[in-house]
């Protein structure tokens, strides 16, 4: 290695180039190691989970006991996960898209404010998920929810909003996935040729009209990709919702925004750590993991496909 850094020595071509061979081999090995790990994980989950997956499992609840291998299912968890993720999308997409529009369309690229916003976005992306959980508990439940209770129903003994619930879990996740949506939308907006905007402006459209009617429709696939990536990220997250909405066990499905809910990821955690008999409930666990994995993977694959199509189309545009 040391020899090859001395000028000229590494460039000698009078024999077999061991350094290059070894380097290429080792880095290639690292790559294939990652692929192999991926295959082992997915293969293991598919192989173990598939036989335990059935229509009954997908459509029944936990009324007969959540550790009952024959009778319990994941319907409440699927409903809970889906509703928290859909609610989250409603909050995060508008905010994320508008932020990206400001960054790419309105602001000076060199302004210090943009540096600040970008820094905040990057930082938000790196905040640990459990910290989001604490934030949801301290801010949404402890501050917003408690004050809502004090204003809306001062006479009720039981807190309605000042406790864990669907709305707070969704909002916490929305804060967490904000960077995903912002970055994806920004990327989509930047890929749109400047000529389109200039043409629109030259024809007399205002800035806002240009953004709404020319830029945004073009960026739609990119925004969708961002949304789907955010959903797939949020669907598997457990730490932020542990304190803000997910329930260990609950009868029936959530009916209002302030209800607690059961969640797929949290259920995986419960089944793998709190089960009274891990060997006996293993089939349940494996099937639940498979459902969660199928959900997040199918979302990811859709996002990748949309992105690939978008890139192809943009190449034609440029």
């Amino acid at each position, binding site marked *: 290695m040391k020899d090859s*850094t001395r000028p000229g020595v590494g460039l000698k071509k009078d024999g077999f*180039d061991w350094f*290059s061979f070894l*380097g*290429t081999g080792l880095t290639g090995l*690292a*790559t294939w*190691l*990652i692929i192999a790990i991926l295959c082992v*994980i*997915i293969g293991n989950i598919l192989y173990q989970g598939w036989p335990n997956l059935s229509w009954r499992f997908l459509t029944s609840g936990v009324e007969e006991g959540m550790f009952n291998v024959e009778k319990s299912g994941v319907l409440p968890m699927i409903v809970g996960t889906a509703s928290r993720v859909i609610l989250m999308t409603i909050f995060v997409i508008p*905010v994320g898209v508008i932020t990206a*529009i*400001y960054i790419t369309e*309105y*602001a*000076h690229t060199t*302004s210090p404010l943009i540096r600040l*916003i970008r*820094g*905040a*976005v*990057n*930082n*938000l*992306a*790196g*905040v*640990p*998920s*459990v*910290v989001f*959980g*604490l*934030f949801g*508990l*301290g*801010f949404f439940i*402890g501050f917003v929810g408690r004050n809502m209770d004090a204003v809306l129903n001062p006479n009720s003994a039981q807190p309605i909003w000042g406790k864990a619930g669907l709305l707070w879990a969704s909002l916490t996740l929305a804060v967490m996935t904000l960077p995903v949506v*912002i970055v994806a939308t920004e990327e989509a907006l930047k890929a749109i040729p400047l000529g389109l905007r200039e043409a629109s*402006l030259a024809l007399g459209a*205002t*800035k*806002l009209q*240009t953004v709404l009617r020319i830029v945004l429709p073009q960026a739609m696939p990119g925004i969708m990709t961002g949304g789907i990536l955010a959903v*797939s990220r949020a*669907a*598997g*997250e*457990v*730490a932020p919702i*542990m*304190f803000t909405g997910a329930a260990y066990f609950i009868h029936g499905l959530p009916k209002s925004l302030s209800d607690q809910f059961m969640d797929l*990821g*949290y259920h*995986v*955690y419960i089944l793998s750590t709190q089960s009274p008999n891990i060997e006996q409930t293993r089939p349940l*666990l494996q099937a639940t993991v498979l459902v969660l994995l199928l959900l997040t*993977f199918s979302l*990811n694959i859709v996002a990748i496909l949309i992105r690939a199509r978008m890139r192809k189309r943009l190449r034609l545009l440029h």
Partner: protein
Amino acid sequence: MLAEAPKPSAGKRTHGWMGTLRGHRAHPMEWIAEKLIFAVSLSAILMIFLIFLFIGREALPILFGRMNSAARQEVIPPDQIDKISPEKLQAYLELTPKEFAEMDRETKIALMEVRVEEAQETRNHPDAAINTTGWRYLLFPQKWEGYSKPEYIWQPVGQVHKYNIVPLLVGSFKVSAIAMFLAIPVSIGAAIYVSQLASPRTREWLKPSIEMLSGIPSVVLGFFALLVMATVLQRVFGYETRLNSFLAGCALSLAVITLVFSISEDALTSVPRSYTQAALALGASKWEAACQIVLPAALPGVFAAAVLGFGRALGETMIVLMTSAASVVSWSIFDPARPITATIAAELLEAVVGGHHYRMLFMLGTLLFVFTFVLNLMGDLVMHRLKARLEGKA
């Protein structure tokens, strides 16, 4: 409102008040919309600020030493109920003003009697008078009752709650260090291979497949580590405790690999192709070009990837929660460890809201937030510099 909108002057009519290209004179609605867009775009900054504010707020009493967790507190005899002010009594009984107002005299006396009994129970415990939330007890070893020598203990249950954060810090850094040790060579090697050495056709499917790994939820990785990896690793290495920091580190590295891979791959790809082409033209092999030309140029980016990966490892929760056990201060990789994140996740729901345990966990959260904030800031700065440098040179 129209008056406030900038008047396009003849000279520089393309630059409005936000320095943007504007079509023609701004419409009032346009002006409002722009203000709204601007306000919404500040949300990311606002969120960072709110996170810091609201997690820090819960932790403040600990940071300023206002919390008292001593099991034996000063008691007020029940017959003195009329001699002290209602505010003082309410604080003494730890009631909210509403609860206090609704409670009748007898209940209050009963509560006071409970206090006296509690105090008598702890009278014989030598450590009962210690306020364990003091900084001294958080950071330094203490010789607790029943132990032969001073020790670092995190044990927030029982009569005396022991809140030494050193075992948790050691756990966090140990597990993250193991994860980084395993993840860095693999992910950076793979990044070099995918970005520089693989053929474009292989690259096209390699990159998304590796990124699929990041699509696996961390709770699923935790499940895999707990039920599959734990057994395999125990059989291979033959250690005694099934759940230990080595297992947690291995599982954690799976989550870190993809992050470090995609950031360093990004940095390597952003090095202009002309660098590589020049090296190849001078007779270097592909590997030499990658290793001696591209890697040094992208080194800050690779460093940033490692820093951000470390931040991710420190903050990852579900994997370490499912693979961690007791909190012990030990640097051996086959001893169990309990990182900060796992402690917060496992104990927060059991803690009394507003109590010292609850606030202590928020204090740990603040600590974690500050750690990762600094790491992210560092990574972000380095990446920014690198981009500016490469774009300037290109």
